[in-house]
C-alpha cells in the first residue's frame, strides 16, 4: 500500500537533481573562515575587560554585596577598637572612684607623704 503522492515531492526531487552553482571563491572563503577561527581574539585592554566584567548583572550584584559586607566588617573592627578604649576608660574611672589616692591620670599613686606602714 503506497501513501498518497504529495505534489511537493516532484518539486523537491527536481531541486535535488539541480545542485546550486558553486561559488568561484568557495575554497578561498572556507580557508578564510578556518583561519579566522584559529586566530586568537584581539587583546582587550584592562579597562575594557573590567567594563566587560561589570556589564554582567551577576557580577554587579556580587560587587555591591561584597562592598556592603566589607563596610559591615570594617564597622565591626572599628567598633571593637572603640569598645576596647571605652572599657579602658571605664576601668580607669572605676579605679579613680575606688582609690582616691590615684592621680587624675589614673595610673600613678601619690607618693608624697604616703603612709609608711
Amino acid at each position: 500500500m503506497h501513501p498518497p503522492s504529495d505534489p511537493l515531492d516532484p518539486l523537491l526531487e527536481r531541486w535535488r537533481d539541480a545542485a546550486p552553482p558553486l561559488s568561484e571563491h568557495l575554497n578561498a572563503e572556507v580557508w578564510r573562515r578556518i583561519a579566522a577561527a584559529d586566530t586568537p581574539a584581539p587583546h582587550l585592554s584592562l579597562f575594557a575587560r573590567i567594563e566587560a566584567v561589570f556589564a554582567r548583572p551577576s557580577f554587579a550584584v556580587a560587587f555591591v554585596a561584597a562592598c556592603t559586607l566589607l563596610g559591615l566588617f570594617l564597622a565591626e573592627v572599628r567598633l571593637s577598637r572603640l569598645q576596647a578604649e571605652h572599657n579602658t576608660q571605664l576601668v580607669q574611672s572605676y579605679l579613680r572612684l575606688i582609690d582616691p589616692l590615684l592621680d587624675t591620670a589614673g595610673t600613678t599613686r601619690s607618693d608624697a607623704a604616703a603612709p609608711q606602714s
Partner: protein
Amino acid sequence: MKRTLFVFLLGLAGGLLAHNAWFFAHRPGNPSGLDAQLAWMKSSLHLSDQQFASIKALHAQSSPQLQALATQVARMRAEFAAFENTRRTTGEVDFLEFARFVEQRRSVDRECAESTRRLIVAAVGVMTQQQRDQYCRTLLSSAGQPTATDSLN
C-alpha cells in the same frame, strides 16, 4: 562606561551606608558615672543579678565617702603645691605647719587605703573565685603599679 561607574558608585554607597549605619547603631555610650562602671563590671565579670545587686549596694554605700576622700586628697595636693611654691619663691618653710600637713596627709592616705581595701574585700566577697581573679587582675593591670588591691594577694 556609565554602567561600570554606576555599579562602582553603588557599591561604594552601599559599603559606606552599611558601615555608618552599623557603627552608629552599635557605638558604645559615653563612659561616666557609677552606673556605667557597674554595668561594665557586670558584663565583663559575668555577674549574676544577685551578685550585681550586692556589688551595686556596696559601691553605692562606699561611694560618698570615697568621693569625699578624693576631694580631700585633691585639696591636700593643692596645699602641698602651695607649700612648695612658697619654699621656692621665698626660700622659707614653716616646718611646724608642714609637719602638721604631713601628719594630716598620712592620716588621709591611710583612710583612703583602708576604705579602698574594705570596698574591694567586700566586693570580691560576693564573687566566685574566677570572677575574683579576673577583677583583681583587671584592677592591677589598669592601675599599673601597686594599689590597695595588693593587700588581697
